[in-house]
């Protein structure tokens, strides 16, 4: 598998480390239901069949965290974005 890092270009899978679902947002710790929210954040995952947005880390390259959209059925990489940009709209690292 190959991932096209927006900073380094098209690279082999072995340069990357996987984390998981990129749809998860760290909950607000001050909310009254913070514990329930955090429990879901830490433990609950959908097992998506199809397009899945997920975090990858370019460990053997620029150290950027990426949001990769991958089809879990075909392993097709549909999109690769800087995580900072994808989630915050700010310029990447």
């Amino acid at each position: 598998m190959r991932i096209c890092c927006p900073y380094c270009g098209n690279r082999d899978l072995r340069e990357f480390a996987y984390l998981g679902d990129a749809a998860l947002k760290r909950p607000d710790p001050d909310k009254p239901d913070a514990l329930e929210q955090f429990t879901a954040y830490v433990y609950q995952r959908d097992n998506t069949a199809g397009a899945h947005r997920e975090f990858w880390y370019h460990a053997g390259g620029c150290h950027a965290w990426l949001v990769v959209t991958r089809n879990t059925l075909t392993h097709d990489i549909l999109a690769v974005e800087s995580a900072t940009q994808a989630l915050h709209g700010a310029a990447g690292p």
Partner: protein
Amino acid sequence: MSGPQPFRLPSGGLIDRSQTLRFRFDGEAATGFAGDTLASALLAKGTRIVGRSFKYHRPRGILSAGSEEPNALVELRSGARREPNTKATTIELYEGLEARSQNHWPSLKFDVLAVNSLLSTIFVAGFYYKTFMWPSSFWEKLYEPIIRRAAGLGRGAGVGDPDRYEQAYAFCDVLVIGAGPAGLAAALVAGRSGARVIVCNEDFCFGGRLLAERQEIGGGPGHVWARRIVDELTSLPDVRLMPRSTVFGVYDGGTYGVIERVTDHLPTPLPYQPRQRLWKIVAKRAVLAAGAIERPIVFGGNDRPGIMLASAIRSYINRFAVVPGGRVAIFTNTDDGWQAALDLAKVGVEVPAVIDSRPAVSPQLAAQTSGAIRILTGSRVVATKGWNALRAVTVRTPAGTEDLEVDSLAVSGGWDPAVHLCCHHGGRPVWNDAIAAFVPGSLPKSLMVAGAANGTLTLAACLSEGLRVGAQAAQAAGFTAKPIDVPKTEDEASGTAPLWYVAQSKGKAFVDLQNDVTADDVTFAEREGFRSVEHLKRYTTLGMATDQGKTANVNGLAIVAAITGRSVAETGTTTFRPPYTPVAIGALAGPHRGTHFRPARLTPSHAWAEEQNAVFVEAGLWLRAQYFPRPGERDWLETVNREVRNVRSAVGFCDVSTLGKIDVQGPDAGLFLDRLYVNHWSTLAVGRARYGVMLREDGFVMDDGTTSRLSDDRFLMTTTTANATKVLQHMEFCHQVLWPELDVQFVSVTDQWAQYSVAGPRARDVLAGVVDAPFDISNEGFPYLAAAELTALGGIAARLFRISFSGELAYELAVPARFGDALARTLMEVGARFGIAPYGTEALGVMRIEKGHVAGNEIDGRTTARDLGLAKLMSTKKDYIGRTMSNRSALLDVDRPTLTGFKPANKNARLGAGAHFVPLDGPASADSDQGVMTSAAFSPTLGHWIGVGLLTRGPERIGGRVRAVDPVRNNDVEVEICAPCFVDPQGERVRG
């Protein structure tokens, strides 16, 4: 024909008769020519039997001329280079080649275990599953050794592989897989477009079937055309031709696995050459032109030596100038099979009959034989005679049954496109009635198919499809391909009517020759309910082993289809997975063997430590000095005790360069650390160090270490050796994903700094001689937990931290990595008069247990900060990673095992990590388990063993006793519960 190569034709073939090569088979000397395979050379010599079959030990000969070969498996080479199960049909002959037949005892021609053939009613499908069921203890002692001896294939070398293997990457626009007519045409059109093209060819010679057939292209022999195309491709700068290279797998993202047999055609690899090279080729587009594999027909006695595929016979005649025998009949259901009759007749071999199962054939086909060959249509071979070699075939014709005396039989059952690579992404081949074979269905994204692999079985069509698909591939990769005229040639007759299995067969009719699976086995398995193709495969072993059923799968499927009254298409197909042909584990491992399995990280003063006689231990990738034995010391414990005593009484120093060091800078650096660690950092004064603990988001401890503030906007973090990479990755996540608004940057400086801990009552005296004046190293000027940037060793930038893991007065001094060696030597020199001695990780560990500090044994991913007695660090005034989850009720349970110290009740008793705590009066059972001893050591300071561990309500039970039980090491010790700090509990020494 006579002499050493009686079956070699006097002229012709694509061999180099000027180069005679000597070889040995089963110890017997023989000769062949350059350009031969071992199989062609054996056939030239007249060798019929080359091996014994897997289950019944029946004599077997050569079936094919390629990598689909199920029978002719030999042990190649000798000694450490002995390689079992090598296909004689793909071994390129070289001078001095040595090969042995396998799977027989005591000899190839007389095999005692051939008696299995008589017991075949026992050796039915599923035999192993049914017979060797119980008692289970019999498996190890009785069944397995017997099966291994009786049913083994070749023998491994039993010693280390002396050869080297390489791994390489390549990138191209168009990868062409196979160099027959379609592949060469595709490569030519893509190559001329300017695309970067790689052509991988399994064979050592380019041309595919053009080397084996007499068909002409452009008015000349096909192999001459192939040569011309290869010459042009060679001249193109961006085209790379890779002979002896098999594409064995398709992987995601247009990545192809290729094994290149770099020096397998030589007696031994040349100096500095690998034996094989594993390629990962990344291609924008790939054209599969791997051709097709001829299918045998299943009939009684179809495994006798001398029975060969018709296409293989044509290869041996036309390419290798070898005839299979003197009297060769043809058994076919295809027009293509007749070509073998014509080729045999042309070189003067007697062809007593063409036996065609079809009721009639086209007059044009029959006319080609000019009436010289007897034609038996509507006929089938039902049995064969002979044991070590074929003597006759029994033919059932519409007129009756007759025996034909022959020494060889050419069999042609149709062609199966080599669709294997098309299936590697889960694609299923689809049935094509016109050619009665599977053709590619849905394809891997970047892959296109051309020629016989696509079911296009005739030459003119192959060439035109190769040109068309090659142009498409180049265009898809962004190049403009100019059309090329299809060279003048003809399509050969290719009619076929399916025949899988001769129902009137007498004797064993083999479907899978390599696994000795017969038609009866398949019928039997179906009757037992194994109707799904996947079940059938596993139950009968059809399609397994080194050939993966390349000549067997479709016949097996067709037989099941016939039994169940379904079509082959309805019955299904097995899935092909990588590798296409076997790949040596050595090639997959590549250079990553022995000490090269993974890199070794050495600290800057490694060489110095070696001079000091250090014993090293692996810590992740690092090699760290474990202890420094001196002459006269009897064992490691004596050494470690001496090192500990030396620190506690004088001064020692230890290389701590492997600890992770992360330089954190920016206006928000303090705030960032506040969110990472459980404790506060933005309040830390410049020039001070602090111990910190960080959690994972699930509330468990991730890592710990000391971090110092060098200036308002600059911190220097340390992590444990093991977690350095993980912590940096975590920090990157927190910054890039969670809080990109924080103005902070950080980078690992682990490799840039060498760092030494100098510990002991005389540590200050030593340091005073190392740091440059006028730095004030007095207790007042540089107190406990101070941190500073300064110079040392006469002007070298350095960092000094007054931190202690040993519990003694201690400093950590860091210098740029290139000065690490010099610093170690200087510390020895300056410290000599204070009694300095280096100490290793073992003494470091003893002293941290004496102090009750936690380390990797305690921070094992299952412990919380409270478990480790670090609750007081946890801030309640801010959020930090893991805070919310660390307050889950289960993690607040007061019964959770908590860090406690342990001393043996009997001071002579030895403690060991891993022991479980149980009450004195309770049973040593899981139900009464109260925790575990995480670390233990002999304390030279106290003169007895000590331990720390996690005990339920431990801190409340100080003074009480429990048993530390270790059933694995057979240890059961009564221990006294105590505080985890054994030495200087008030911490006076570190402040002294």
